[in-house]
């Protein structure tokens, strides 16, 4: 299948659909064909993946002790009815 070629400027707007797996088959073929020949866009897609990974590291945080205690107290209150 020969897909209509797409440009780098289009790639950067399609990358989220590409990673979400929601591109239509023809657009997906065009996207993959572009990556075959364009190291710049391969880098770009890699960077978006890396961005997602680094954003995911923000979760490693804990509740403040005051909040934990408040919730524990609320739980005990609730059980007492």
């Amino acid at each position, binding site marked *: 299948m020969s897909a209509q070629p797409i*440009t*780098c*400027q*289009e790639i*950067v*707007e399609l*990358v*989220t*659909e590409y990673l*979400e797996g*929601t591109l239509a088959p023809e657009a997906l073929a065009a996207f993959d064909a572009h990556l075959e020949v*364009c*190291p*710049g*866009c391969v*880098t*770009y897609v*890699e*960077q*978006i993946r*890396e*961005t*997602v990974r*680094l*954003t*995911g*590291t*923000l*979760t490693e*945080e*804990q*509740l403040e002790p005051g*909040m*934990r205690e*408040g*919730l*524990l107290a*609320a*739980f*005990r209150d*609730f*059980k007492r009815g």
Partner: protein
Amino acid sequence: VQALEESQLVAALRAGDEAAFMRLVELYGPSMLRLARMFVRSQAVAEEVVQEAWVGVLRGIDRFEGRSSLRAWIFRIVANTAKTRGEREGRSVPFSALAGEEDDGPAVDPDRFRGAGDLYPGGWKSFPEPWDDVPEQRLLSQETRDVVDRTIAALPDGQKAVITLRDVVGCSAEEVCNVLDLSETNQRVLLHRARSKVRGALEQYLTAA
């Protein structure tokens, strides 16, 4: 959380098990705070919302049917509680309304691409510089994470809510649509804009000498 652990936690919570409750608080508390913060003005109010939401979880756990994940169900309660609170504060714009209105700029500065008269219109003028050579230690440093954190904090509300749930908390697209009342398309558009901006900020930070 594995499905098995989830069903055990649900059963334990129904039985009034304090350890199970505190396990859930540790697991989801920080994400619930982040989520609540999307709807209300201050951290203090977000904390109240989370507390109120937990009481809602305890009240409703007997009616939880497992049609969504426990997490999505809990987040939905947080979102609803926070929305009600946000409305009282006069902050009630639904995220779906924001999807179309939030700034619609391109993912990458158009200046980085060749113009219409060029042999390769729409091609990179120069390729983005790979981050392969950036040591992992620098990528995961507090400073790099601060760049990500600050960029997300400065995003418009809808984008901030979606990237927070998807990429910080780790929800699926379906969970995000459910929690924020967004269509699949709106969810994706907001995620796209948000990720593009965070990448841009990281590029600027990581490739600056």
